[in-house]
């Protein structure tokens, strides 16, 4: 990965509360439905948790499961994958392919022991700003209850740790490094 792209959503926690755990959630959304739906949620001034960093892709069919693994590697505590409802795909069948791929991915992550509540999959259309808010709030609540994903962070090579975000969010990185030390 180019370091220019912060896939972990780490910056979202920069303004987080100093005392409590603020989940970092990375959302992979499709350009045509969920991104527009999230935009609608914003322009409608809906209140929702601010822990989600959105990465916009052309289609859910473009989302390789490796993106999710990479998000966990870079310190995400949870992920959201969201796109067009079945029959609504801008490219006709991208979401159908994604549905099968994520069913398999979901199964293997469960086998390996990743809590399925860390991964939220949803269909949110361009008109469903309120549904996006609900998806985000529920994902944040779930991940907050589960706590930081220290188990994945503990896999990091001993000298590297979580990729340190530049600038003001460095504090968040050192906070998570502290959490890692506790875990190990």
């Amino acid at each position: 990965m180019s370091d220019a792209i912060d896939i972990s959503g780490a910056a979202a926690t920069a303004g987080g509360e100093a005392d409590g755990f603020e989940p970092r959630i990375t959302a992979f959304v499709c350009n045509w439905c969920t991104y527009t739906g999230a935009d609608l949620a914003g322009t409608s001034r809906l209140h929702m948790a601010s822990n989600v960093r959105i990465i916009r892709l052309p289609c859910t069919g473009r989302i390789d499961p490796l993106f999710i693994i990479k998000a966990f590697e870079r310190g995400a505590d949870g992920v959201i994958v969201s796109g067009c409802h079945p029959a609504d795909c801008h490219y006709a069948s991208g979401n159908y392919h994604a549905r099968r791929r994520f069913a398999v991915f979901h199964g293997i992550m469960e086998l390996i022991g990743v809590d399925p509540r860390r991964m939220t999959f949803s269909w949110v259309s361009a008109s469903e700003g309120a549904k996006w808010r609900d998806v985000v709030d529920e994902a944040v609540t779930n991940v907050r209850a589960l706590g930081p994903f220290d188990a994945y962070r503990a896999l990091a090579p001993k000298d590297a740790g979580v990729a340190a975000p530049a600038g003001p969010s460095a504090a968040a990185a050192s906070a998570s490094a502290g959490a890692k030390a506790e875990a190990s």
Partner: protein
Amino acid sequence: MNELRELACTLLTDSTVHVIIGWEDARRGARPAFITDPADTDRLIFDTRCVHDLVTYLDPRRDNVAELGRIGLVVKGCDAKAVAGLLREAQLTRDDIVLIGVRCGGVLEEAELPQAAPLTPENVAPRCYGCDNREPALVDHLLGEAQPEPPRPIMTIDERVAALDAQPLEERWAFWTEQFGKCVRCYACRQVCPLCVCERCVAEKTRPRWIEASAHPRGNMSWNITRALHLAGRCVGCGECERFCPVGIPLSLVNRKLQQIVGERYGYTVSDDPENAAPIGDYRLDDKQEFIK
């Protein structure tokens, strides 16, 4: 066995094929053999030690094999499924190869034995239990006599997967991080896999570097999940990845879990029928989506 040797001799003599890939007896047990001279065909064997999935040599990118000429390949039922996989993905043309099928009653877990041993629950390869393709249909020639069903291993792969599934998440995580933690990233699993045929593996991509290359737990996790996912709905369960793994990661358990998922969700069973579309890359409008909000 004479039947096999005679057929191989005929095929080589009349130049139907230029090389027969089968098994031979060697000092350390059965091993793959490349026979190009009709006089050498009496080296060919088939017994319970012939565990190797020789289909891996059909990978079009193995040019040292391709340059030997037209291939005649000896296949068991499970191997024929791998050939069907390559045909399905247009990696092979059926007319370019001659398939010699052997009726199979199961193989041993271990190829390196001085003599063939009768199968017992202790020594049988677990994947052979419940095999549905002991007489491959895809072949040009089918040899040997009807074989009895292989014995039930002490613990079947399905039972091992179920035992793992029954454990709490934390214990599964601990199990797999320990297993994947052993990985030395030799990529033997990939090299031996008959269906890992990408021109360039994502593990070798450096711009961007998706999968960390050094052998540490984080990169190993990423590699092992990716390897399994890329074989979802394609893996034929030949078990070669696990047999070749120098550190003994139980890769069959991951592979079987994926087979179970595509079986339960999409009604897909791996077969040696190349017309049977693979589940990933295909879809139905009414696929189950209970995990999606």
